[in-house]
């Protein structure tokens, strides 16, 4: 486990191999439920890319390959009264929260049973207290408003916002952090720091660090650079409790690795950079560390997702009644 609360710049560049030790360390054994969710997301994302390459999907999508463990670690700490604001890379968030690959795939394919009737598509989803949208940074001030509501009307509940490292370019993030800290609202910002924004490496789009940006506002910050669900959850638990009980914002920075393309095949990173990300992939590591449990679960989820694809793919087009 590797948790620090003040951090230097996260090094995602393909230098030497100082992370060899990290990658070598075995991942802890997960419950079948957690492993199942991780693998469901993985196979879901692979299926989405496959559907695209078959020309069976319209538009665009952003898969969370490599980052699946973040919502899997976090969401058991939330209850259904908590709000979650997701972003463009949100399939894993949705699936970890609702375990509903049918509704999501139908949404992406525009088929009957789609969670938003095919209107929102991959990056605009709203269900219960879960909402995603496609304009980066926009949801942070919205979460502050929700946080004001929760603090006054439903104390003990929180709003979680997922953003990427690149989203720290947007002024809205700072306007929101300032208000969140001034008004002490229970907003937990989860930064999925995968070292890149679309094609631009972090060091070319972010000066300073996520840690210093949180400190700028006096907002607490925790950096987590493990991909082990057990460790990540343990590190998150006290933070979630603080946000819940003390109604204050917090920034958690998960150092993570984008294993796939930004959207659908637009990965211009050098081969060694991609290979470096792949070495960190929990999927590869878990297979190595727990081969028997992995193999069974992996096959089960692969088949389950394949069935979802078949079933949803056969449905009629969605209908939008409420327009």
């Amino acid at each position, binding site marked *: 486990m590797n948790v620090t609360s003040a951090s230097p710049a996260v090094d995602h560049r393909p230098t030497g191999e100082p992370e060899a030790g990290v990658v070598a360390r075995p991942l802890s054994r997960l419950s079948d439920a957690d492993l199942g969710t991780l693998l469901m997301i993985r196979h879901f994302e692979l299926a989405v890319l496959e559907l695209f390459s078959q020309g069976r999907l319209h538009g665009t999508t952003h898969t969370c390959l490599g980052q699946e463990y973040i919502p899997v670690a976090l969401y058991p700490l939330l209850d259904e009264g908590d709000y979650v604001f997701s972003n463009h890379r949100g399939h894993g968030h949705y699936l970890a929260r609702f375990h509903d690959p049918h509704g999501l795939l139908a949404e992406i394919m525009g088929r009957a049973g789609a969670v*938003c009737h095919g209107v929102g598509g991959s990056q605009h989803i709203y269900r219960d207290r879960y909402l995603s*949208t496609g304009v980066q940074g926009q949801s942070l*001030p919205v979460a502050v*408003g929700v946080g004001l509501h929760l603090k006054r009307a439903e104390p003990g509940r929180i709003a979680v916002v997922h953003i990427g490292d690149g989203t720290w370019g947007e002024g809205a993030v700072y*306007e*929101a952090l300032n*208000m969140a800290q001034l008004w002490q609202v229970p907003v937990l910002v989860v930064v999925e720091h995968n070292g890149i924004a679309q094609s631009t490496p972090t060091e070319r789009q972010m000066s300073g660090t996520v840690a210093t940006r949180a400190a700028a506002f006096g907002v607490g910050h925790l950096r987590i650079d493990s991909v082990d669900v057990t460790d990540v959850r343990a590190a998150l638990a006290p933070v979630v409790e603080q946000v819940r009980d003390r109604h204050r914002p917090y920034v958690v920075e998960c150092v993570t690795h984008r294993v796939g393309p930004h959207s659908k095949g637009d990965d211009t990173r050098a081969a060694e950079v991609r290979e470096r990300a792949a070495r960190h992939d929990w999927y590869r590591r878990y297979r190595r560390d727990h081969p028997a449990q992995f193999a069974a679960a992996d096959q089960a989820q692969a088949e389950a997702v394949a069935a979802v694809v078949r079933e949803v793919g056969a449905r009629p087009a969605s209908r939008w009644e409420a327009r």
Partner: protein
Amino acid sequence: MTRRQRVAENLNSALHHLLGAHPGTYLIGEDVADPYGGAFKVTRGLSDRFPDRVLSSPLSEGGIAGVGAGLALSGNRSVVEMMFSDFAALAFDQLLNFAAKSVSMYGRRVPMSMVVRCPTGGNRGYGPTHSQSLQKHFLGIPSLHLREVSPFHDNQRVLTAMLDREEPGVLFEDKVLYTRAMYQDGVVDDLFRYEVLADPSETARVFAPDCGPPDWIVLAPGGLTERAVTALRTLLLEEEITCELLVPSQLYPFDSKALLPVLSRADRICVLEDSTADGTWGELLAQQLHEQLWSRLARPVLPLSAEPSIVPTAAHLEHDVLLQPSTIHRAIMEATK
């Protein structure tokens, strides 16, 4: 007779009412808290009464529009004040791409009770970045409605209707109006009377009694009332041109069908507005009216706007750029020939 209420007071008591009546109502804006009570004093007394729901914010126009949307999303009613409507440009993304879109883009209706208040317009010498009339830039956004304060329309009723709509709305408030009195009892002045039409638009109709069908119908948003009435007066007294003035409360969506009985009483129609021309409310109305009254109109709808210019600061320069009673008078007179 009691002193007539000023428009700023009317707005203030409307906000007092809204915050008192509904415990999930919030007001957020820069310097709205007491004792300052807002740059135009419209929010006086509110934070003293409702300290946890009336918040002076940092200078973050985009941010507070988002906060208002978040409050609405979680079932509250939010009123967000832009100190000057010019700064609503900083909130354009939140309004267009989040607040308005959220109502429909998730495939089912998501109620969003939210009003953005925008002190608007010139004639006060505040200069190019503090004097604009930006209504036109917010037109035609699905699920975003626009209203404008007028001296005829009680703001408690206006704001309540906006919030009850459960869609985000923008309320434009002409800054000059703040110090003017609300009209009451059907009287505008010695010459003109008004009535509020019974159709759902609750449009105010200003007319000189006993004049018969008018030569012109003039449509104007609330902020132009005073300048329009001045022009109506001089046109009547000096040119014997009779005009009736229609002042709607809601600018958008605007359905002129309900007004057709009134509009068809004249064969000439003029639309006033404070913005520069092009891409405007006046053109929107003109298009509707051309479609509906094509064969009855003696000439195309006459839209009158400010000069195509930024709003300069010095009083004499500003006066020449903005729409004035004399410009209205002259344009209508010439178009009557």
